[in-house]
């Protein structure tokens, strides 16, 4: 397995190769591409809770990110693609190599991929931070990685393709295997009780899970003409490992996603169901539905409902109840300067503290001082080129 540093080195080597290749290619169809996306936002909550890695009681100005995407086609059937990410939010500054892989396209129905590849999972799993492809600045929270359960990229190999089904339908399929490095996340667990006060004591640790012996697949039925996209994904991991010393024990785990999307003219609607379950019986369930409408050419309104819940085994009490559930209703008013640049004003009414939490959420939840209703404001701009 390559470490993070090695992946970055590989990415730099790839970028250098592409820059060289750009000089040497002929002046016909372009065999390279350089594109990118980014965003900035101000985020604030109306109580002591923090929400979505980018909003705080005081207001967060340092929410920005930028990604560069490069592609090269050294041979007719061979493509190499990579995407590097720089960003800053409440988790601090981060750089990441989202993916780097080689693809051999035997035909439109059969493409082989090897490397670090984005997991074909939910509607947004391959376009996480591309804000010009969605009405809300923030992703639905089950994507946002605050729970660390989002399979973002896998290291390994896979096949993909989109054979036609009749005149206007196609079947998009993916099958893949390898291992998944999950997003890092914070975990608050009761570690004991203070003998003086009788109150529980908590520890907060940053965890990052690795899913090994992973196989997965996705099937989508798509009609670009009708604007319909429906399907689902399954991922099985033989063993999900936590770092040494971590209290987390997962064992094998399965992830499921069902999704549907309709986009026609100014109207779009989408809904997704997501479930993660471990062999011990713990897991996560999440559902969201969203609708948006464009009017007066440049304006867009959108509404979103999301419900998420951590599933615990019977008798499991290490996570206080308010921290196990999330429900939110969001509204958006956006101004699209162009398809590549959008200004967004988003608001959420959040209930539950799975994702909207104060600084010491465990103790606040046990003491009953945690605010279970949170208002969130996000004002930002997102672009792509």
């Amino acid at each position: 397995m390559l470490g993070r540093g090695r992946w970055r080195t590989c990415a730099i080597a790839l970028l250098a190769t592409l820059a060289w290749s750009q000089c040497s290619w002929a002046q016909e169809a372009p065999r390279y591409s350089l594109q990118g996306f980014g965003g900035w936002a101000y985020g604030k909550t109306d109580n002591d809770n923090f929400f979505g890695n980018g909003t705080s009681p005081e207001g967060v100005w340092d929410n920005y990110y930028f990604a560069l995407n490069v592609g090269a086609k050294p041979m007719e059937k061979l493509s190499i693609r990579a995407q590097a990410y720089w960003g800053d939010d409440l988790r601090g500054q981060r750089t990441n190599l989202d993916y780097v892989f080689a693809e051999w396209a035997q035909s439109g129905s059969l493409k082989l991929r090897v490397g670090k590849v984005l997991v074909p999972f939910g509607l947004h799993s391959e376009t996480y931070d591309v804000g010009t492809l969605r009405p809300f600045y923030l992703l639905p929270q089950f994507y946002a990685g605050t729970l660390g359960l989002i399979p973002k990229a896998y290291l390994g190999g896979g096949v993909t393709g989109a054979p036609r089904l009749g005149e206007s339908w196609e079947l998009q399929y993916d099958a893949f295997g390898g291992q998944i490095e999950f997003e890092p996340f914070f975990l608050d667990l009761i570690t004991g009780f203070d003998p003086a006060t009788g109150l529980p004591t908590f520890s907060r640790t940053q965890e990052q899970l690795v899913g090994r012996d992973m196989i997965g697949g996705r099937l989508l039925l798509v009609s670009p003409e009708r604007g319909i996209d429906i399907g689902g994904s399954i991922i099985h991991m033989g063993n999900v490992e936590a770092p040494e010393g971590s209290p987390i024990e997962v064992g094998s785990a399965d992830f499921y996603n069902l999704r549907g999307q309709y986009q026609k003219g100014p109207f779009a609607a989408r809904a997704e169901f997501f479930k993660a379950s471990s062999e011990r019986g713990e897991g996560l369930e999440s559902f969201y539905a969203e609708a948006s409408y464009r009017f007066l050419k440049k304006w867009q309104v959108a509404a979103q409902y999301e419900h998420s819940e951590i599933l615990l085994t019977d008798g499991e009490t290490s996570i206080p109840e308010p921290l196990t559930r999330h429900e939110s209703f969001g509204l958006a008013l956006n101004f699209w300067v162009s398809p590549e640049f959008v200004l967004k004003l988003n608001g959420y009414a959040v209930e539950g503290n799975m994702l909207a939490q104060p600084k010491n959420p465990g103790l606040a939840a046990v003491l009953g001082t945690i605010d279970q209703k949170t208002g969130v404001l996000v004002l930002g701009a997102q672009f792509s080129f």
Partner: protein
Amino acid sequence: MKTCGRTIASFLLGAAALVGASAHAQDGFRVIVNLANPVTSLRETELSRLFLKKTASWPTGAPVAAVDQERTSSVRRAFSLEVHSKDADAIVAHWQTMVFSGRDTPPPVKTSDASVLEFVRVNPGAIGYVSGAADTAGVKVVAIR
């Protein structure tokens, strides 16, 4: 009198230009391929798949090289609505999804009819579209079924 004549002539020339522009807009677009390409007609769904790069080769086996025009051009707007049944912005969003998910890259974009004509003339597998008034000498205009 001479000045008046010039004014009338200018007015007539301007009106003619406006009429020409209007006719040009009504003509919409024409789909063109290289002269060596045996294809003479295509269905709209086939055209859409060619420009979305879902069909990678011609019946002869030659690779398809589609070329687009600028998103804001009237010819692209007309082409998108007619062939893809979507506006040009929706097609831009489609390509954003393809690019950033690492699945594909959009066709090259040319800034004028002349650039598209030149690209199609010199690339045997090329297919493009130009405005109805463009001079299509040296390329083949494909009928749309």
